[in-house]
């Protein structure tokens, strides 16, 4: 079983959900992103999702777009992302990568998989790669022992949902709302239904993302999902801060609140 799978099992045994926190590599700088992710782990985030900044992130809302733009303007390269993954993996927390497909294709799919595995990454979340187009990635992830997380959506048909989860390894990413990333005032009504549809199709753990930003929301999602994925709310801590120290403090506070939330599932 993959390291992510072990982490999910342990959380399940503890009667709680796993907390996955997302941050773009190189935001605000390469070193700054390592510090941010390390602070998140120290404050209770179980799994770090390292997003590779991309110029055209169509699944991301304004907060992550802004952070990606800042990272790219700072000159971050895909190779730097590998360094970030290595540094964060050294904390002991499982690290999963999230990326749009073109940077992987440009890096070379097999070489990317090889470097990701040797940096200590457990797998890849692919927001704009569906299994239908993923033949090369399926082969490379098999060859290098990486997990594959494809997305399922409230609009996925049963047939597509079954096909998609069949190609997943590690965990399944359920997008809670029809929309892009970004914290929302209310969590989604569609998500519990989607999660139960996924459970009917696979034994893999299910992470729910899009729109979670508070401890209370994390508790609500933890009531029905195995993993709670938080991105924009964490990124905003760094984006809105006037100094690195202030950003890290805000990140620690929110991470701890979210960690508390996933330990108090609302069932």
């Amino acid at each position, binding site marked *: 079983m993959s390291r992510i799978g072990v982490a999910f099992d342990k959380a399940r045994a503890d009667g709680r959900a796993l907390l996955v926190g997302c941050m773009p590599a190189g935001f605000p700088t390469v070193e700054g992103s390592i510090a941010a992710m390390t602070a998140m782990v120290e404050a209770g985030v179980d799994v770090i999702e390292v997003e590779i900044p991309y110029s055209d*992130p169509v699944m991301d809302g304004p907060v992550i777009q802004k952070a990606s733009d800042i990272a790219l303007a700072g000159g971050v390269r895909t190779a730097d992302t590998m360094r970030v993954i290595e540094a964060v993996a050294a904390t002991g927390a499982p690290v999963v990568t999230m990326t749009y497909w073109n940077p992987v294709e440009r890096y070379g799919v097999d070489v990317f998989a090889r470097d990701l595995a040797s940096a200590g990454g457990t797998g890849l979340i692919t927001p704009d790669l569906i299994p*239908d187009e993923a033949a090369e990635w399926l082969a490379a992830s098999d060859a290098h022992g990486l997990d594959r997380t494809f997305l399922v959506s409230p609009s996925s048909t049963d047939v597509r949902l079954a096909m998609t989860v069949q190609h997943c390894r590690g965990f399944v990413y359920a997008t809670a709302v029809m929309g892009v990333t970004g914290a929302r005032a209310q969590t989604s009504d569609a998500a519990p239904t989607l999660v139960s549809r996924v459970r009917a199709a696979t034994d893999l753990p299910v992470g729910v993302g899009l729109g979670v930003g508070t401890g209370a929301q994390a508790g609500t999602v933890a009531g029905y999902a195995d993993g709670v994925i938080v991105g924009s709310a964490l990124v905003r801590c760094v984006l809105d801060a006037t100094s690195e120290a202030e950003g890290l403090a805000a990140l620690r506070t929110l991470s701890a609140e979210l960690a508390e939330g996933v330990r108090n599932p609302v069932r």
Partner: protein
Amino acid sequence: MSADALAPVAGPQPDSAGHFGRFGGRFVPEALVAALDELDGAWRTAMADESFRAEFGALLRDYAGTPSLLYEARRFSAKVGARVLLKREDLNHTGAHKVRNVLGQALLTKRMGKTRVIAETGAGQHGVATATAAALFDLECVVYMGQVDTERQALNVARMRMLGATVVPVTNGSRTLKDAMNEAMRDWVANVDETHYLIGTAAGPHPFPAMVRDFVRGIGDEARQQCLDLTGGLPDAVTACVGGGSNALGIFHAFVPDEAVRLYGFEAGGDGVATGRHAASITGGSAGVLHGTRTYVLQDADGQTLESHSISAGLDYPGVGPEHAWLHDSGRATYLPVTDDEAMAAFELLCRTEGIIPAIESAHALAGTVALAPKLAAELGREPTIVVNLSGRGDKDVHTAGDYFGILDKER
């Protein structure tokens, strides 16, 4: 002809998942797959439905004013050294070939029971065309436009608003066409149940490239027959400008099986491909994934999209439709860059010889034709016949061209 603009033809088709060889396909969030499947189904059903074809044909004829003329440009021909036949898409309602695509997609939107259309636009031409169709079909219309473009194309913003559309300036990324497209995709993911994304060119995820091509391919069907009627034979070459590439595919498609007819696509070479300031995705880019499809893309070593540059806002896009990528790889069509200066020289030549002000986009096709004519004449040993897609009129470009030629009175 236009009464059955969708009749099946023998031209090339993608596989059932929209792959043109190694290009095309769908690189999209799973959330959009259901909508793309629905659209694919609606398009295929419509294509096989005589009532849809009749309705589309009637709209093209009575509303858009097609078939557009094939006009023999004698004075231009004399300067160029070829018999040049202009496919006058500039005379269509809204001033370009794009009206064909928006009418087709608006009809499909109605058929799918959707009430809202969204679109991206660069210079505003596709936005205006979409707003036009939305008014005609009583659809809510939201147009995303980069903030840089809303400022430099204020007149088209006003036009869209007059037609009842909401124009949303996009302030992220490079604030141009590609960012407008990103923002439209984001809107679509969030509102897909009632919204159709009316993509303006033969790019994007399947079925858009093949579907848009089908809606505009009447250009080539008409031109082929008109050329036969006028000259008694097929042309030696067909030329068009290529940004996303819908006007070029529209005129190429009918000629693809005619192996003796050479197909030339002229890309926006900007300051010259060697300078890096251009929008020539095939001649100056590399294979990659952008906006839902695999095609030629302007990108850096890490796969980040590069900004494109062209005097023509309609060609200023860092990608190209996947069918062009495929026609390029197969060698069936030839793609060459045309610089801003070459395009503007041809722009002026057409104005002065024929009294026709072309869109700067179309001026790229004219400039490519000027360069092609003597080579083709030498090779064939006679005067070649060249059909040029005059895809749009230049009214929208008067300010840009006036500025380029330095003929605007100074502001007081």
